[in-house]
């Protein structure tokens, strides 16, 4: 069979259009691919009901910083951040929290907000880098919401993190997060003394303010050590 021979120049204009469309759509496609909701808020909420670690809640949809803060997707390139269940149970009910202003930039791993308990302040690290777009005013007014729902109503900041993907590698998720939290639990267990009683060791529910229960005088030091903020 003889294939039909076409004039190779007849379609040049259309080919240029295809190439231009490709070049125009490529950045949009790449942006769409990377600027993701990552996990639907509904799925994050559903996952929050799961207790994945022995004593502490560890929602599956969130990313965890080793300094016991979390980041969960809250729309395209936006994340809500807060402190994890381990941190809130270790510190107990805060008398006051200090949050940076909207518009300020967070550096990943740098102290981002402070939690005041008994007049002593513990700073916790930002899990992601980015610009603050919202603060949880309800948590500012009543810090106890953090203890009630650390991954939901107890969120602290909403951050726009356009470069999140490249920084996600050092955050913990899934099985890695579970193993990390288990190690944190082990470290806590080592610190336990008999006067804490049966609450934790015997499979009970951890009491709020574990650090103070363990050491009334040096709880601040202990908390910093267990939260790896020193």
């Amino acid at each position, binding site marked *: *069979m003889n*294939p039909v021979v076409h004039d190779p120049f007849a*379609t040049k204009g259309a080919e240029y259009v*295809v190439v231009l469309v490709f070049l125009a759509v490529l950045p949009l496609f790449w942006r*769409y*691919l990377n600027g*993701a*909701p990552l996990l639907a808020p509904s799925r994050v909420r559903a996952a929050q009901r799961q207790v994945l670690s022995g004593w502490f809640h560890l929602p599956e949809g969130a990313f965890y910083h080793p300094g016991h803060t979390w980041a969960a997707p809250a729309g395209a390139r936006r994340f809500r951040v807060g402190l994890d269940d381990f941190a809130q149970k270790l510190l107990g009910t805060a008398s006051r929290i200090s949050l940076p202003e909207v518009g300020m930039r967070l550096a990943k791993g740098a102290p981002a907000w402070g939690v005041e308990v008994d007049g002593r302040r513990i700073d916790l690290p930002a899990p992601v880098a980015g610009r603050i777009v919202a603060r949880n005013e309800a948590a500012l007014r009543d810090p106890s919401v953090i203890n009630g729902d650390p991954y939901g109503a107890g969120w602290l900041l909403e951050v726009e993190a356009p470069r999140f993907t490249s920084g996600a590698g050092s955050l913990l998720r899934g099985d890695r997060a579970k193993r990390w939290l288990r190690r944190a639990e082990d470290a806590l267990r080592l610190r336990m003394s008999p006067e804490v009683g049966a609450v934790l060791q015997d499979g009970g529910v951890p009491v709020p303010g574990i650090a103070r229960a363990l050491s009334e005088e040096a709880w601040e030091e202990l908390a910093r050590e267990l939260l790896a903020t020193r």
Partner: protein
Amino acid sequence: MNQAGFASTARAVGARGLWRFLVSELKPKGPLLTAFNLISAPIIVAAAVILAIRFTKGLSSVTNLSQDVPWGLWIGFDVVTGVAFAGGAYVLTFLVYILRQERYHSIVRVTVLNGFLAYVFYAGALLFDLGRPWKVVNPIIGNSFGVSSVLFLVAWHFMLYMIAAFVEFSPAVAEWLGLRRARRALSALTLGAVIFGVTLSMLHQSGLGALYLMAKGKIHPLWYSEFIPLYFFVSSVFAGLSLVIFEGTISQRVFRNRISEDHRARHDDIVLGLSKICAGTMFAYVFLKVLDIVHGQKFGLLTTPMGQWYLVEMVAFVLVPLAVFTEAVRWRSQTLCKVGAALTLVGILLNRLNVTIIGFQWDIPVRYIPTVYEVVVTLGVVLAEIWVFRWVIYRMPVLSMPPTWAMDADAPPVAAPRAAA
């Protein structure tokens, strides 16, 4: 016998120790009567019998090949599709050793092993189709090199790539045998072998497409294009990575006791990273295919029955998996990644068969349909490769961590504290 045990035995009794070790390693490590073994063993035996008939009585005794269709399923599936599926090895080694994307390091060995075995078995299946298979060495030894033929290029590339892939994998063999000095020497060759291997792969993935350039007029115009080499190369990237995702999913279950903690912990992130690369390359591939339709003025052909078949391939097995991969990355969904990989593998199989069989001589009165013998041999080749793959996984540190001495050798030197003056 463990590795350290063999190393000491080998020093003591030399070749006899090695022989005993290898014989002991040939024994099965798990139960023999598994469902997979019971199904695959008879197929492999049947394939061996059919091949014995093929080599004694000729191609026509077991195949439907003819002068019109001299290349059938054994070339179209085993060689052309199998080599595309093996593309993950060169992409992964490029990512890890050249671009230093260390997060993929834990799957390099298993991917290179897969690639190497794919070449040995699937490219080896080329021999079944050669009328005089003993002449396969001619392009290598110079008994009429045939430098003007694309097959010359393919023959050299296959041979050199198999050597390069084996060199890349060889430190695992040395670790299995406990040969420390050999491992040191072989590890030093890795980067060179990777550069060589990546170059060869890019050339012969496209070279396989170039083979079909000379069949202009025999391949349906929707699949024939002067850009076939480019299409084969670009599609080998997502074909190979999809197989890595697919194989990784199966390995995570089948070899769960052999998989290192490091490998398991990184698996989800690795799958998402590979899915993103698949989405990116598929996106470019779609535009390249559109360019071909525009350049060749083939729009009219799309309404014909073959055109609709072409659209099935492009829409259901390129555009749909592209969308699935994209959403998988956005939602960080492992399930969607696996669905995307499975659809892509079917799409690549379809594409290669469309070029080599379905769209090849599509207008002749008597179409080629492979015999059941050809199908059994093809299945036998795939299953035999899986048997060897499994044998290696259960013996060599591929998914598991290397022995401590090998990891110590790779660890960066620790600065010794200076003694006080």
